Structure formats: C-alpha cells, structure tokens
C-alpha cells in the first residue's frame, strides 16, 4: 500500500506545466496528501485563478498517484491559503537560475505601485537592483516584466500575491 510520504516524494517530480524548472511541491501549491486505503486524496491550490495550467496540473497529479497504484482523488481548493510566500527556498533558487526573479515577500497590505517601482527587485541574471517595472502584466497572470539597467535585458518577475 502506498504511503503519504511516497506520494509526496513522487509529487516532487511533477514540474509546473508553464515553468518546468520548479516542481509543484516547490511551488507550494500542494496543500495536503491523505491516504485512505487505496484512495489517495491530494488537495492543491491554484496559483492564480486565471491560470490556464490548472487542468494540466490536476491531470498530472492524478496520473502520478495512479502510477503509484493509488486511486486518485484530487481536489482543487480555491481559497487564499496559497501565497507566493509558500514557494520553498529551493523553489526560489530554481526560479532565479532559470531567469525568473522570485517574488518579493508579501507586505502587510496589498501591493502598491510605489513598491513595484522601488529598487527592491533584483535582476536574476546579473544581480543588480537597478531594475525598473516595464509592465505589471506578463506572459502569464503570475508574472510581470522588468528591465535591468545594468545588464540591459528584460526579465520576468514573479508577482507577489
């Protein structure tokens, strides 16, 4: 019989469909794994509700559980329990290596334009903080576009939510 630990271990291998350098576990979206006989309950939270990869993630989770011999029961929990603060330190490092600036920590209140225009954002390529906001929106709902004044290239910044 499959154990919760084996399931967690297997889930660590599932890449995010849009940013495959990071796993769903490192992204912090897996909320809970419960094994009840052959039935394996996995609950996960979408990053953004507009994420087109939601169905792909669900199918990947089901397939992984099936391959372990479990009967998958995947639940999507749409509440505010996920925030970008749940991305693991390993996950943040993997994002940076792949050229995505990891999200800034969540502040007490909602993100403001002044914060986005501040010098708190580091270029993932050269490490400079001489970067500016190009567009709040990017190729997916979870990313913004910034420009590095030091190495003169654009980069993608994970939004803080």
């Amino acid at each position, binding site marked *: 019989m499959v154990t919760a630990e084996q399931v967690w271990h297997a889930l660590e291998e599932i890449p995010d469909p849009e940013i495959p350098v990071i796993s769903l576990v490192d992204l912090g979206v897996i909320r809970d794994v419960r094994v009840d006989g052959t039935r394996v309950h996995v609950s996960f939270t979408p990053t*953004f*509700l*507009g*994420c087109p990869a939601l169905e792909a993630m669900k199918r990947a989770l089901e397939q992984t559980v099936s391959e372990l011999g479990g009967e998958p029961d995947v639940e999507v929990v*749409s509440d*505010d329990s996920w925030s970008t603060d749940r991305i693991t330190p390993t996950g943040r490092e993997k994002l940076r290596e792949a050229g995505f600036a990891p999200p800034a920590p969540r502040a007490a209140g909602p*993100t403001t334009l002044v914060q986005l225009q501040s010098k708190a954002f580091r270029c993932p390529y050269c490490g400079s903080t001489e970067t500016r906001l190009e567009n709040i929106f990017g190729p997916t709902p979870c990313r913004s576009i910034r420009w590095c004044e030091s190495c003169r290239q654009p980069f993608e910044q994970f939004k803080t939510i």
Partner: protein
Amino acid sequence: MNERVQLLLSTADDELIVGWRDSEWTGIAPTLEEDVAFSSIAQNEIGHARALYELAAAELGTNADALAFDRSPHEYRCAPLVELHLLEWAHTIARRYLYEEADRLRIDALMRSADTELAGLAAKIDREETYHRLHAELWADRLRDEPRFRAAVEELWPYALGLLEPELRPELARRIGLRVDSTQAIERGEHTPALAELWHEMTEVRRSEPGAEW
C-alpha cells in the same frame, strides 16, 4: 434558484463578460504593453468567473462550462456595464476603472460573508485583483484631467451603479467623486442588445457540436 446561487451567477457573469470584452483588445491595443495587460486581465477575470461558476454548479448539479455557455442570453445575470461594446479608449479605461472600483467593494463584502467557502474564494480573488486595480488606477490618474475621459466616466456612471447592491453605492460614489442617484442607475436584469451579439459569438463554437466533449 436560491439567493446564494443568484449572487454567484451575477458575479460570475460580470467577470466572464467583462473578461470577454477586455479580451477584444488583444492584438489591437494602442501599445504592446496594453495588449499584454488587457489580455492578462481578461484571462484572470475569466478564471474568476470559472471559480465562481464552479461553486454555483455544485449546487445546481451542473458544471462551469454549461453555466458559462449553455444558457440563453436572457438567463445571464450580468450588469449592463460589462456588456457595452466600447471600442474607444476613453470609455474602455472608464469602464475598467469603474468596474474595478465597484468590484473591490463587492469582493470586500463577500470576504466578510459567513459563507466560508465564498469568503475564501473572495479573498483569493481580492489578492489577484490588486494588479487589475493598479492598472486601472494608473490610467485613471493619467487621464483624470482629460475631458474625454471625464465625460466617459460620467456617461458610464449610471451603469456602474447597477453593478452594486444599493447599500454599497454611496461608498462607490465617494471613491469616484460622483453622486448616487438611484433613479438614474441602470440596473441588473435588463440586457442591452450588445449581450445577444456577444453571446452569439462567444458560444458559436460550442453550439456547433452540442454535447461534444472538448
């Protein structure tokens, strides 16, 4: 249809239709930056619609796709503001700005609801909406003194009132700097002819193969 389902469908229909209208800017916005912004906002609003439809679908024994696409136009509960076909920048920005300001108040009320499932979803939507609000505020600040923009806000104001329940309207008026005149409000319930046109296009592919699994 109970009150909860009505509320879920009104909100979901607003989000779906406003997302659909915003997506009409994909590829034709005045700058690439706005192309990306409008496309991303549209995608996210439609994502919010999906999550809200799912809660309604669980009660009605159907699914989100069926609620989004298989109803006839008169069954939609969206407010007329989101239906308007406004391919003109001042009006588009005025609608985004009015919509976000009204939506903020509605989400805030849902977050305080005793319905924990709905309150949880509202809290998640609220976090994501932060970025839509920044976009709307940025444009509203930039255009504040432009007569065309001010005229567009005033023209759409009666429609904006129709998005909210009467008790939330005074706060919206305070935020926008206009006055509440509820006799003037263009209320939810009646649709503009633009909705039927939009619906025809939006559901065309799905209607071409009824019952198909996509």
